[in-house]
């Protein structure tokens, strides 16, 4: 009987060891995320309370707390997108460096290219109408022959003569 109890104790500690060691090892496998890793994500976010300041350079205490939060979430294994998503849920869409592509925000992405294309089209139409008018004029009056040869020098000399 006493031998059994005597043997039970190391067996108990052995069991304890088997169950404890893995957890200890698991914890030790998560190194603290470096400042660079935190910054890589903080750069993409804006401070929720300061004016237009990215989170990695914001000097306030609140921002320091948020950077620690990012570090913590990185240590838990969260991905960059998950962290950004968490910030959006908690602090609103303004923490992102550009508006999320939903709803009304599509307007911000669509309008500039559309406006540019509209401008290009207007320019094209203007060119066409000017060329047409010009063709009209030149067929009426005889087209002017573009100067041949070293036209650049000739032109330059003409300008210099005028300015002399």
């Amino acid at each position, binding site marked *: 009987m006493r031998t059994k109890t005597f043997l039970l104790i190391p067996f108990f500690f052995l069991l304890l060891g088997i169950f404890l060691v893995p957890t200890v090892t698991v914890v030790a496998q998560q190194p603290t995320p470096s400042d660079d890793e935190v910054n890589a994500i903080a750069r993409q976010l804006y401070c929720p309370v300061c004016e237009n300041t990215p989170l990695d350079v914001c000097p306030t205490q609140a921002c320091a707390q948020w950077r620690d939060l990012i570090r913590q979430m990185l240590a838990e294994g969260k991905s960059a997108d998950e962290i950004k998503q968490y910030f959006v849920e908690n602090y609103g869409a303004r923490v992102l*460096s550009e508006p999320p592509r939903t709803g009304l925000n599509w307007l911000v992405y669509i309008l500039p290219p559309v406006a540019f294309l509209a401008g290009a089209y207007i320019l094209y139409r203007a060119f066409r109408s000017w060329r047409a008018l010009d063709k009209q004029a030149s067929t009426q009056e005889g087209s002017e022959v573009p100067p041949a040869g070293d036209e650049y020098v000739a032109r330059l000399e003409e300008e210099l003569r005028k300015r002399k």
Partner: protein
Amino acid sequence: MIADFGFGVIVVAFLLALFSVGAAVYGALAKSYRWAESARRAMLLTFPLVAIASFTLIYLLATGHYELEYVYSVTSDSMPLYLKITALWGGQAGSLLFWSWLMSAFASAVTLRRWERDREFLPWVIVVSSVTLAFFLALTIFFENPFARWWQTASGEVAAMFRPTGAIPLSPSGGQGLNPLLRHPGMIIHPPMLYLGFVSFVIPYAFAMAALITGRTDDRWIRITRRWTLVAWLFLSLGLVLGARWAYDVLGWGGYWGWDPVEIAAFMPWLTGTAFLHSVMIQEKRGMLKQWNMLLIILTYDLVIFGTFLTRSGVLSSVHAFAKSAIGPLFFAFIGLTLVSSVSLLVYRWNDLKAEIEMKSMLSREALFLLNNLFFMGVLIVCFWGVIFPLISELVTNQKVTVGPPFYERATAPLFGALMLLMGIAPLSAWGHSTFKTLGRAVWKPALVAALAVVAIFAAGIHNAVALIGFGLVALVIFVTLYEFWRGAMARHRRTGENFVTALWRLAGRNRRRYGGYLIHISMVLMAIGILGMQVFQTETQGTIPQGGSLALAGYTVTFDSVAQFDTTGGRNVTRAVVSVYKGDQYLGDLYPRRDYYYESGQPMTIPGVRSTLADDLYVILVDWQPISAVGATFKVYHNPLVNWLWIGSLVFIFGTLVAAWPEKEEVKS
């Protein structure tokens, strides 16, 4: 007492400005020379008056009259004299007075020119300048008064010009002091440069309005204001570059441009101003685009006012914005007035602005200039929309959003690339005649050299597509522009027998606008080199290291030697670290990043230690995520390749603009 005197003086100046508007309008409508002259004299008189008021304020600032609210808010005993003087533009009220001073100076300078050929313009130019001056003086008198003083009333401390009932005067013994971030040489020159740029764009606008009102819609107004526009553009560009330099030196985030709404507000008039500079050349050479040029100068002026409004009214949230102020509504009314009146005038005169159209080829210089305008407008739309959209989004959805660098960079990069391509091709095109063949013949040699440059860069190990395209375009522009210089000088050399250098000098001297313009193009691509280097190749790292430890980045090693903490002049406590920089094994020198803490304002500042070469900057800052001590200090190291080309480029464009704007002997008569 002195403050009351200063206030009285600006009230008189304000009344004079109003009088000058009335007299000028009457003089123009009644065709009375005497009334127009009277208006001119009134306008001239405002300058010495506003100058006296400004000197009064400077005196009050320099001598520490803290009973005045403005002096209290921007100066303190610990500030050196030069900072106290430049605090004139350190806060809202003083900077508005400074604006008025510059406006009256420029308006007076314009009224002092010889007007014989343009009598009919004079009254209307005076009207526009005086209305703008009166507006800024009104802001100062009624809303943001730098001469207001502190009073103690029953409900607390109040700042006002005249004694509120039951109040007694208050005289604080010290001042708050200027925000430490603003105590930097860049911040001293940056606002005046910007204001000079803004104010000087009012003059071409005034002439444009005069041309519209009087119906003299030929290009006389453009020829008169040609130099003003160049000078305005120079100041505005300098103001932007100085702001970027200040941000780089002092804000401690290793960058120079954050696409902040207030930065963009100053950038937008630059965009339209640059487009305007190019498209007026088409009007002068070909008589075309009169309507478009009018529209551009109207846009430039309105963007100046709009930008000033955004910065100062509290509508935008920004690190740059002044504190919320009551000037918003008046500003808004002024914007409305100027927009509506200028657009109405333009529509009214639309037909009279039609002109001879000659567009022989889509590859002619006119056509390429028009493309240039299209791309500048494209960038303008991106910027304007990015600034306005958060306001709209918040009104509609009640949710704030941020439109930040990724949006702007992605949208404007191809547009700027296209502009660089145009800078490479357009100098080779000809006015009027240009076919694919003639242009191709001119372009292929520089294009080939540029392509070879790209191959060389690729072989050197750079494979990033954006960088390769960007550097290729830079090479194209440089080769084309140098080729133009060479061709012109050779042509002259052959014709006159002068040696090459003299030929080059005389060539540029006889054709300053063109060759000054080419120099400016070169300066722009030099700046593009810096921008590309930063955008594509900037790297950073951060870490906490003990004394003796080091951080490695981009082949450099930064070793922490020591740190010291002490009080110093200017009322601040400094934590200063000494780090040594090595490249491989080679010792390159020491850097001294530091953090200053200003006792009065409780504001910290981060000053980087920077090692600058043509190839790159190594930029080290002291970070306070953890307490700083010899045991461990946190450093952030940035490697900024090619960034100094930005500043070099800006020096070149100053030179180029001087060349372009330098008066030529024959033109003095006009």
